[in-house]
């Protein structure tokens, strides 16, 4: 058993209007000349410290939580789960 830091990121699905991201992109990033940036999306990050037998199990455990407790809503969100290095 080990302790793993698992990061879950929930952001809006592509194609859904994301006013916060649009404003950051248009009025901050582009306005200051960082024109190499082509898209910005905003999300929420959750960091969970999980006790598990392996990093894969820790990730799957967090994915299960996200699905069952609807930490994200698949109708409008994308979920990205990864292990913290």
């Amino acid at each position, binding site marked *: 058993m080990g302790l793993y830091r698992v990061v879950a990121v929930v952001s809006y699905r592509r194609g*859904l*209007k994301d*006013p*916060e991201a649009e404003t950051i992109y248009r009025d901050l990033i582009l306005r200051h000349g960082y024109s190499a940036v082509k898209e910005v999306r905003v999300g929420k990050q959750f960091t969970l410290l999980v006790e598990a037998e392996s990093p894969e199990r820790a990730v799957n455990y967090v994915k299960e939580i996200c699905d069952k407790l*609807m*930490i994200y*809503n698949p*109708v*409008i969100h994308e979920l990205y789960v990864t292990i913290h290095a």
Partner: protein
Amino acid sequence: MPKIAILKFPGTNCDEDVLKSLREVGREVRAEIVWHKDFRLADGWDAVIVPGGFSYGDWLRAGAIAARSRAVLELPEAAIKSVPVLGICNGFQILVEAGLLRGAFLPNESGRFICRWVRLRVDNPKGPWLSLAKNGDELHMPIAHGEGRYYIEESDYKSITSSSPLIRYLPNDNLNGSSYDIAGVGTEDGYVLGVMPHPERAVNPLLTPRGFKPGGEVIFRSILYSLKSGW
């Protein structure tokens, strides 16, 4: 006398207004504000209202945490037992998050909290909450929300548009960018209804701004009438 439960969560703040509206509209009703931990459907409630506010501070997403509470997990049983359920504003968000109604909510398209009176139209009124409304009725009520942009996939919309009660913003009054101008939606039988605008703030003519009529009254009159005489 019909018994109506008004569910309260930490952060609910429209419960007193709902109670007052019900009492203003009809004397023969026993309405009570019930703390979510004390709520038991088996206590013989004839209808349940989930009022607006900011349950659990809108953390995670508006309504997401209350939707997983024991009280709300009992509500699908209400639908089976034909106990009418109404969700107002945050209550609507809770019912959607709990999967009792279709769709999802996103932050308003403008990115701002909007508090304004709007004009609505009733389509296909059905069930206990709209029994006294007529198809095409124009209702006026205020909205007050930050996450009110109703989103529904096209295929889901097609399956409800002819069968379920819908309340729509008039085209110029869809201020949050909701899909298909949807401000309220019900289940096919209309037992469960969710509305984003606040009927409880649109009952008293004294509190209704010039140019508008108190359009929330019909919802409270409907439920009292329905519980007494059927629908």
